[in-house]
């Protein structure tokens, strides 16, 4: 008969020695019970992070996934710094956006230009039964890619990712009034660019007439 061995591991990471051991052994044990939580709290937001990254990087999916990976690595290494109120999503989007800005800054310092304004068109699937064909999606994304980055970020966070205006302001690090004006200008610009494709020839003609007049 073998006696049950008492489990010593439970609660070890609460004590200083446990924390040191945890650091030495790395994340495999450092977060103890928090480990499944991390995956459960982060992974639901990965599709959204990929969309956000795609929107920032003009649809370059590979670079977008690089950015997301970078973001997730930082999130894991700074897990203890996550926002106290438990808004993991907003915190993740903020990390990703800040990474994007610093990458952008680095590229500009090196004198490199923005990635070509190209949407990865070949892989765009059609949406069956939807109002818009794959062609329409392509046109929409191409028009979207023409918008300035600040309008793209606001539109993706609010219109696609369903962040509140306050949450978007926090992620982007700007006042809420700035978010509203960027949203307004972004929507109008996109409407202008898509006028015709989305709304039919009739409207395009009238819009043209309006602009000429």
């Amino acid at each position, binding site marked *: 008969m073998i006696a049950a061995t008492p489990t010593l591991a439970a609660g070890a990471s609460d004590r200083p020695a446990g924390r040191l051991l945890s650091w030495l052994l*790395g994340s495999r044990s450092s977060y103890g019970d928090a480990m499944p939580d991390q995956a459960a709290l982060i992974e639901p937001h990965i599709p959204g992070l990929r969309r956000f990254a795609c929107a920032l990087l003009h649809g370059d999916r590979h670079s977008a996934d690089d950015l997301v*990976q970078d973001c*997730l690595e930082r999130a*894991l290494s700074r897990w203890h710094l996550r926002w106290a109120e438990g808004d993991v999503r907003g915190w993740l989007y903020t990390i990703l956006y800040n990474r994007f800005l610093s990458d952008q800054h680095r590229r500009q310092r090196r004198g490199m230009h923005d990635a070509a304004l190209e949407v*990865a068109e070949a892989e765009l699937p059609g949406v069956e039964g939807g109002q818009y064909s794959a062609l329409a999606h392509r046109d929409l994304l191409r028009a979207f890619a023409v918008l300035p980055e600040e309008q793209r970020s606001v539109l993706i966070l609010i219109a696609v990712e369903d962040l509140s205006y306050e949450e978007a302001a926090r992620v982007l690090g700007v006042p809420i009034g700035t978010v*509203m004006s960027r949203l*307004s200008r972004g929507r109008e610009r996109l409407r202008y660019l898509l006028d015709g494709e989305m709304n039919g020839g009739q409207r395009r003609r009238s819009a043209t007439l309006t602009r000429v007049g």
Partner: protein
Amino acid sequence: MTPADRPVDEDELHAQIDGRLSPHRAAAVDAHLAAHPGTQERFSQYAEQRQALRAAFAAQAAGPIPDRLRIARIREERWHRRYRQLAQIAAAVSLLILGGVAGWAVRDVTGPLAATGVGTVAGVITADAIAAHRIYSVEVRHPVEVNADQETHLVQWLSKRLGRELTVPDLSPAGFRLMGGRLLPAEDGPAAQFMYENGSSERLTLYLRVGVGGETAFRYHEEGGIGAFYWSDEGFGYAIAAKANRDLLLRIAELVYKQTSPNGARAKIPPPPGKPS
């Protein structure tokens, strides 16, 4: 003016299509749009645009999450990275320790004796043997403490002091006869010196220490015109020193080895009977 009566602004129209409008303003916004058909048309296009963007981006990020974006995978990578860093630190620390140990180990060899090419014990014994030879071989009146005519007593006395039964080699085949011997202080205990002389009054000394581990081959070192062969065997460290050429010293060293080592053809002097006086 109640909140419901407040004029509708552009932000509220956006809030309506984003589903962020507070319910008590819904009626005011609807009334505003009804009164402004142009604005209503524009915002209905924004609403369509919103749906189209959602569909387009949903399609763009469709498909399963790639493996490299899985939390478990990223955590694994981080663990490996940290493990590699730890391994590097450990390697660096081990190298430092190894360097320190090696430095400590060679500290005695790094003097003039480094040229002997022998280890610490061999170097020290050789140096002591040469120093003792230099001092006592030039003595005219008191080259030895106990004379060869009291050989039995000499051997018993030195055996007792060194704690091991000593053998005094017979070097007459090389033309040397025993003059006698003396007790000497050494690093961590006593040492014995036996002195021999040949017909030309040339002297050589055999220096002995106990507690020397291992067995080594003959190693030659020369200092200030005095040559010495050192070897260790059966817990003894031997050094034979003389102002002589290397070949002669080697012959004598071999002679001593043959008589002292069980591996050599031993010609042991039997322990004398009775107690020392």
